[in-house]
């Protein structure tokens, strides 16, 4: 049995003593008297730190090993694994997974996203209810088996927020580019800047938001850098009133880097504004989609802007790298490019809204998955972070769901809201061009009150259960259909993600990848890590 899900970094406990006994070695906790006898082979693995995560956890849950990162383990005297009687859970689904020449059997709890791989031999015993107690416990602890005596497993992982801590401030709807896939359908000659009354109402509404300690104002557009005076006005207004509220405040902006003026640089430095950029890879990729009103590629101007920011000591958080027909076939070149320019990046397929609906640049089924796989295979060859690799690995390998767009319910009208220059508020910045999704206007009501409207409460309850295809999918616990992409593609937010096929391929691939690295080629993995370190 092997699984990364719920695994920790284990080490030996100082409270454990070792004694040679007739049939092996006895490990005993001198404080609790808990003990286990390991045979010669297992003891050698223990002694030389060669145990896998499941072998470690057998010791851990008896108090015979510790978690390096968290000493907070309480084992009540009443708890006794040997008294547990586990059995198969009806919630669990199974499927075979081929990895090279081996077939593994995956048990998955679709609601939790937890999973365990079994060998053919283990799976046969599982089918016949012949697993031993420790094996059942490894399944039980992951929600993959039940206890006859109704012992419950209570997972208390971060829950989706009730109030937004981030507001996307669309400081203008004007833009100096006319990108072919723009989901907000922005461009030159059609923009409005945010008025001061909208700024005041937005600031008051966010800073008075209950329960939220830190508020992030993220400036977008249109193109935020075409309205630096507006950004400055907004930030100065926040700075002038923030002491009245018990809040921490952060600023960030997402820009295209075409217009990096001294006034922008001064603002970013003065108020420590985090900066992200939009960049689709090298010139021959970026120039195909990120174009101006005359259709001229913007790459050279973007590169100049990035250089200017960096020359002025401004760190760029990362790049949104939109993946479509212009670059999906070049995953290696994308990884090498971002490595070469030293910038972390988040590749993600074109969303199907705005101008994308006319231009059809997004990836075709299977293309994004193939692109992702190749980038994933290169992850250790580069010194930059590919945030998509990070996010998908995290969702498949752990219970943590801290990326708001890949978690049910998603972050729309929870962690995040978005306000347009006229004061209209949207659940997510993806909807900012869609009038149908206006939650209200900050000039008329507080955002907190908008969240209480029946249609917003309904939206906030959007989970896999409310989407027919997702409700039957075994990967629903590690996924989420992007609400505005689903709307763009199907005209209905209660549909699967338009890139559903690719997502499923990515989840399977990541399971295969983990089994390949940690089970089939473990020795090589250790060697690789040691060379790397």
């Amino acid at each position, binding site marked *: 049995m092997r699984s990364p899900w719920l695994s920790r970094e284990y080490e030996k406990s100082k409270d454990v003593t070792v004694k040679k006994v007739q049939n092996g070695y006895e490990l005993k906790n001198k404080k609790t008297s808990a003990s286990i006898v390991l045979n010669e082979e297992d003891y050698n693995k223990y002694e030389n730190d060669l145990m896998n995560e499941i072998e470690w956890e057998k010791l851990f849950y008896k108090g015979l090993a510790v978690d390096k*990162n968290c000493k907070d383990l309480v*084992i009540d005297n009443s*708890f006794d694994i040997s008294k547990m009687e586990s059995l198969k859970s009806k919630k669990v689904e199974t499927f075979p997974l081929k990895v090279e020449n081996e077939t593994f059997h995956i048990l998955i709890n679709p609601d939790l996203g937890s999973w365990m791989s079994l060998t053919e031999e283990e799976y046969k015993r599982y089918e016949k209810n012949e697993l031993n107690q420790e094996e059942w416990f490894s399944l039980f602890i992951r929600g993959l088996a039940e206890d006859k005596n109704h012992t419950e497993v*209570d997972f208390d992982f971060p829950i989706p927020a009730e109030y937004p801590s981030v507001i996307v401030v669309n400081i203008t709807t004007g833009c100096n580019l006319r990108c072919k896939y723009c989901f907000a359908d922005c461009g030159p000659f059609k923009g409005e800047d945010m008025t001061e009354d909208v700024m005041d109402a937005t600031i008051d509404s966010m800073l008075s938001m209950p329960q939220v300690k830190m508020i992030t104002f*993220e400036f977008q557009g249109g193109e935020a850098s075409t309205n630096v005076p507006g950004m400055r006005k907004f930030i100065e207004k926040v700075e002038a009133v923030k002491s009245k509220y018990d809040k921490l405040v952060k600023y*960030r902006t997402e820009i295209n880097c075409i217009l990096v003026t001294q006034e922008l640089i001064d603002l970013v430095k003065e108020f420590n504004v985090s900066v992200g950029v939009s960049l689709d890879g090298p010139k021959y990729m970026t120039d195909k989609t990120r174009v101006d009103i005359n259709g001229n590629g913007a790459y050279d101007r973007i590169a100049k802007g990035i250089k200017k920011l960096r020359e002025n000591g401004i760190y760029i958080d990362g790049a949104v790298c939109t993946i479509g027909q212009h670059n999906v076939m070049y995953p290696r070149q994308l990884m090498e490019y971002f490595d070469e320019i030293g910038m972390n990046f*988040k590749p993600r397929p074109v969303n199907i809204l705005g101008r994308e609906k006319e231009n059809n640049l997004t990836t075709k089924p299977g293309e994004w998955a193939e692109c992702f796989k190749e980038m994933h295979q290169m992850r250790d060859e*580069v010194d930059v972070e590919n945030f998509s690799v990070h996010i998908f690995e995290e969702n498949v390998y752990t219970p*943590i769901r801290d990326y708001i767009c890949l978690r049910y319910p998603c972050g729309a009208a929870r962690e995040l809201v978005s306000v347009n220059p006229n004061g209209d508020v949207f659940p997510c910045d993806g909807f900012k061009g869609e009038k149908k999704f206006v939650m209200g206007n900050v000039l008329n009501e507080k955002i907190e009150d908008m969240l209480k409207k029946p249609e917003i409460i309904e939206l906030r309850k959007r989970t896999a259960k409310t989407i027919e295809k997702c409700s039957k999918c075994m990967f629903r616990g590690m996924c989420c259909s992007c609400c505005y992409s689903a709307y763009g593609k199907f005209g209905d937010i209660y549909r699967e993600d338009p890139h559903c096929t690719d997502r499923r391929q990515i989840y399977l691939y990541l399971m295969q990848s983990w089994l390949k690295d940690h089970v089939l080629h473990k020795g090589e993995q250790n060697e690789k890590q040691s060379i790397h370190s």
Partner: protein
Amino acid sequence: MKKMAIKNDVVKNLKTKLTNNKVSISFGNKIGLGYDGCGTHTHK
């Protein structure tokens, strides 16, 4: 620049409590780890 050394298959700070009728595993009672920027994902 150097990439942050992050092990995406290990969760830190998992608190565990085992009793005879309940096994609790918690991750610090945090609410909505959330969002740290459109083009990033830096918290863990």
